[in-house]
Structure formats: structure tokens, C-alpha cells
């Protein structure tokens, strides 16, 4: 019984998400032409660590103000050395073109005095065609 408890505790520890911080994302530049009132970009956040991390994707304008874009998925756990596609749909909001930053962010180590949050931002330019 005790062995089972120890084994279970070990498994839980091994499977718990590790709050490390590190990030990569491709592509980091892009230009999209769209015939609709939104444009879509597919980015691939990557995890350079050997353990899984929690990743969040955010969209900002040129002044780093949040943009109401549809991000699928916007937050997820990413396995070590893995990357996965994230679809970002950005509305033009009536404009004919729009520049946005799509940023992949990581969750910092907890319980440390000065935490560092890694953020990789790509610059994307959407043109609207009629």
C-alpha cells in the first residue's frame, strides 16, 4: 500500500507541469492578403526545454495594446521539445490593412524574487483586398 502511495506521488510529480520559462515561435514575420474582413495567421510556438511548459499566445497592436483576435488555442501545455500550430484570426476592424504582433509568452518560475517572462513576438501585416 505504501509502495503504491510512493509510486502515485512520484507519478504526480513527474506529470505535473513545470513552470519553466522559455519560448520560440515561427514564423516571426508575415504578410497576408485577405478577401474577408479578417486575416488569419498560423504560428508554431515551440518549447526548447525537455519538460512541458504552459504557453499563452496574445495579439497586440503596434503600441502593445491587446487586439481582440480569435486565438485557437490561446493557452495550452506544450510537451518538451515540441511545437504545435496556433491559429490566429485578426479582424481588420474596418481598416484596409493592419499590423499586429502575435506573441508567445511563458509562465515564469514561481516563488523567486525577480522573475523573467520570455516573450517572442512576430510582426504580421494584413492587407484587405476587395
Amino acid at each position, binding site marked *: 500500500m505504501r509502495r503504491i502511495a510512493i509510486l502515485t506521488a512520484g507519478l504526480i510529480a513527474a506529470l505535473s507541469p513545470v513552470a*519553466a*520559462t*522559455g*519560448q*520560440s*515561435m*515561427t*514564423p*516571426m*514575420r508575415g504578410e497576408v492578403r485577405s478577401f474577408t474582413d479578417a486575416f488569419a495567421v498560423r504560428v508554431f510556438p*515551440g518549447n*526548447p*526545454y525537455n519538460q512541458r511548459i504552459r504557453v499563452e499566445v496574445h495579439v497586440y497592436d503596434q503600441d502593445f495594446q491587446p487586439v481582440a483576435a480569435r486565438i485557437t488555442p490561446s493557452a495550452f501545455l506544450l510537451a518538451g521539445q515540441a511545437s504545435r500550430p496556433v491559429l490566429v484570426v485578426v479582424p481588420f476592424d474596418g481598416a484596409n490593412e493592419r499590423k499586429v*504582433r502575435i*506573441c508567445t*509568452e*511563458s509562465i*515564469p*518560475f514561481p516563488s*523567486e*524574487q*525577480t*522573475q*523573467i*517572462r*520570455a*516573450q*517572442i*513576438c*512576430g*510582426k504580421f501585416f494584413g492587407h484587405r483586398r476587395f
Partner: protein
Amino acid sequence: MKIARAAMAAGLLAACACQTASAATGNVLFNGTITATCTITINSNGTMTVSSNLQSLSSHNAGGSAGSAQVDTTGGVSLSVDPVTTTTVPASDTTATTWTPTFATSGAQTIAETSTATALTVPGTSTVAVNLAGTKSGTNRFSAGNYQATVTLRCE
């Protein structure tokens, strides 16, 4: 008979020797495009200590340490730190603090300590030292308790 056979063989050889090999050649082109990429790996977080006059809480102070990160890039990107917005201070600290994050790099590209966005033009691996300094002015002082701040290191 022998002479006839020899003559026939010689004739065949001559006929074969006259034929030239007609091998076709063609070029196969390879194209590759490398777009800008950047990977940040956090090695360690930093530690701040307070100065003797209690007006500076900084990783530059004695006993403090900078945070460390590794940046792998193809170049063509820029590195920056955001103004600090997320802090935790003790309840007893009610006075304003000015937080100044800075960074410096060594390795593939050397950047002297700065707080402004700087281009990473050299491909390779650079080690980034991230520092944070909190300062109080006038008669304000840091008080006992736990302080915590988050610095965003951005590659774009």
C-alpha cells in the same frame, strides 16, 4: 576462315569504338529561405538586495544577482525589456518605487547594459543578463518583507 573471323571482330570493335556515349546532363536547383527566428531559454531568475541607505533594491547591489537567459537567433530581430508592471511588495511599503529593468548580452553579440530595444544582428547564441533596480527618492525607504517583480524579456 580464321582471317575472316578476325576481320569481322575487328570490324565490330571499330564500329563500337566509333559510337560516342550520349549522356544527358541537367542541373537540379536547391533553394532555401531562412526567416528570422528567436528562442529564449531562461537559465535562472535574479535576486535583489537592498542598499545600506534602504533606497535601492537592486540585483546590482552586493549579494544580488542578475537573471540569466540564453537567446538563439538567426539575427534580424531585436531584444528588449518591458517596463515592470507586475510587482509584489510588503503591506508596510506604501511609498512609490521606480523600477528600471536592464539587460546586457555576451556571446555571439555583445550589448552593453541598456534598457532600450537593441537589434540582434549576429546569428548565434548570446547569453543575456537581466537586471532590475528599484529606487525610492526623498525620505522614502524600502521596508522589511518580500518583494517580487516580473521582467518581460522580449525578442521580436
